[in-house]
């Protein structure tokens, strides 16, 4: 890019300028090749983030299941953690005339205007994993996160013998999984293991922040047990950290810290297999995918649901004025870690 001596654009820079003008649209156009239209009804997917293994597996699973059910899922939009962007994403999906929208909300409250926009356009709105706290949601597909926190507490308390100090690394309380897992864990701890002291740190569902928080606590306090509210976000960092402190040891060996986590990612199942994790509560990701497709189809047919048991071993409950299908999660220990229905095993 040599500037001309006069500082004015000369003939050659003008050519280059033209080249960029042509290249810019081409760069954009090059990415649109996959837009094969067909007549199947289109479904939109609004993801809050796409930057962690759990969300990626969740998004990919739902897209595959919806496509297999004979519908066309548009490529998921990615709000990159920005609640305002997610509202625009949903609005953009609506303007593409989708027949239904599946969303993983960034924030249970901040998603409400997006739900209301879909309601106004008559597009059924379904959430997965994180619920919406308002608007008219066709179905919140969820796992019972309070029960997950409770299950984690029961496993952890029993393994630790009900005494000592536990480090709880929790997710932001502005998300339903964050608050529910924390609530379930703490209520159960208070009721069943009152002898254990809890140190709680907010990780913001962020891997780097998790390591920072845990490092400070582990370097200054004697910790007997660790509860990870999300192994897919937190486990790799915690493993590295504990290895550095010579505390990454399997069950039965000196230095082992009782550790229980929620999510059930592939590395977490490996850690259960090898005994580093005492137990893991696996999210029903395979069920999320299956029942996202199920409820999208049901919404297109206009089926309505009521509070009570569903036809697939789960409870439909009322949640913040809408329905939520509380899919069951699985407690994973060495005994059942090779179960093929666990998403962490299927994802490999």
């Amino acid at each position: 890019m040599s500037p001309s001596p006069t500082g004015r654009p000369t003939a050659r820079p003008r050519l280059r300028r033209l080249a960029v003008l042509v290249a810019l649209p081409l760069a954009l156009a090059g990415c649109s090749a996959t837009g094969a239209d067909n007549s199947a009804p289109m479904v939109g997917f609004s993801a809050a983030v796409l930057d962690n293994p759990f969300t990626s597996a969740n998004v990919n699973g739902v897209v595959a299941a919806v496509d297999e059910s004979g519908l066309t899922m548009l490529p998921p939009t990615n709000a990159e953690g920005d609640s305002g962007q997610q509202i625009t994403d949903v609005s953009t999906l609506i303007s593409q005339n989708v027949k239904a929208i599946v969303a993983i909300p960034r924030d249970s409250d901040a998603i409400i205007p997006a739900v209301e926009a879909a309601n106004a356009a008559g597009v059924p709105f379904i959430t997965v994993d994180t619920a919406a706290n308002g608007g008219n949601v066709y179905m919140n597909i969820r796992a019972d996160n309070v029960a997950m926190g409770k299950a984690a507490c029961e496993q952890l308390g029993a393994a630790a013998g009900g005494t000592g100090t536990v480090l709880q690394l929790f997710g932001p309380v502005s998300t339903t999984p964050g608050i529910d897992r924390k609530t379930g864990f703490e209520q159960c701890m208070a009721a069943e293991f009152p002898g254990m002291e809890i140190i709680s740190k907010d990780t913001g569902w962020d891997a780097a922040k998790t390591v920072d928080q845990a490092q400070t606590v582990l370097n200054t306090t004697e910790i007997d047990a660790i509860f990870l509210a999300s192994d897919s976000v937190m486990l790799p960092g915690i493993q590295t950290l504990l290895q550095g402190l010579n505390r990454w040891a399997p069950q039965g060996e000196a230095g082992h810290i009782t550790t229980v986590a929620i999510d059930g990612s592939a590395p977490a199942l490996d850690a259960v297999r090898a005994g580093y994790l005492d137990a893991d509560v696996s999210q029903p990701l395979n069920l999320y995918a299956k029942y996202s497709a199920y409820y999208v189809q049901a919404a297109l047919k206009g089926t309505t649901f009521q509070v009570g048991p569903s036809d697939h071993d789960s409870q439909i409950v009322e949640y913040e004025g809408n329905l939520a299908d509380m899919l069951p999660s699985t407690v994973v220990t060495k005994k059942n870690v090779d179960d093929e229905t666990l998403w962490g095993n299927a994802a490999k």
Partner: protein
Amino acid sequence: MTSTILQAGTRPRAIRMSPAVRRELALVPVIIAALIVGTILSPTFLTANNLLNNVLVNSSVLGIVVVAESVILISGYFDLSLESIVGLAPMVAVWLVLPSSLGGSGLGIPSWLAIVACFAVSAIIGAINGLLVTKLKLNAFIVTLAMLTLLRGVTTGISGGQTLSRLPAEFLFLGSARPFGISIQIWIFVVVVIVVAAFMQNHPIGRKVYALGGNQAAAASAGIKTTKLTIAVFVFGALLSALAGLMLTGRIASVTSDQGNGLIFTVFAAAVIGGISLNGGQGTIFGAFCGVLLLGIIQNILTLSRVPSYWIAAIYGLVILCALIFNYLAGARPRRNTQRA
């Protein structure tokens, strides 16, 4: 000789900054090219509904912060903490209003007073930034980076990490009102751009801001009260950012504890693509507006065209780079200004 497109908009007033004006107008053909690409890629793109409700509404909050940052950049400084004010201002206002059962203060302050209070808080923050960089001559980067962290922390502290929702109607108004069928967010954005652009081009104080950013020593010896003017510029930027924060809260009908997080990078990208110089004294508000528009259009096209989701951010970054290179080729080289770091 420049091409006819570029010459067409050259204004007589702007002789001193004609290179910057060329760079600013350079974006117009790029925007037109992007519009054509969008129309080819998606039948939905070139509809009033999409351009207004998706492109412009999504650009409004960003655009107002870009206008705020542009004025500060033209004055020869910059302010990273604007993105934290986008979170803090509405958090303060909502916290003052809401009862403690909803995570608020329980003080029961009326909405209008809380909004006045949040603007006052923002003005004080701007004044502190301005004082630190003028009176103490601290580096604007470090001062406003520290302020960014401090204010983000205060926002998290007030909210306890929670999202505050169930807001009074006064807060929702900025998100839901639609005068003449067009979202109030667009109206506010356009009015802010026009008023600030006219002020910066025509008002003596606006011209003084350019002089300040062009050469501070010369501005001072020409009788401009540089300290006062700098503080005023920082206060102005903070107030506009508070407005943007309230607008964002209106859109999402709540205020999240990480509101505005990461926004400042896009703000700088839009301003620089729009021809605002990071060295001060150059660029126009209209150019910055074009930068915002281009980013908004590209973001929208990327969502509409079926780009694999995992690659959108990479393509977005690539397009920003292309726009910067185009800008460089179309306009003047950025003028070196060694007045300050």
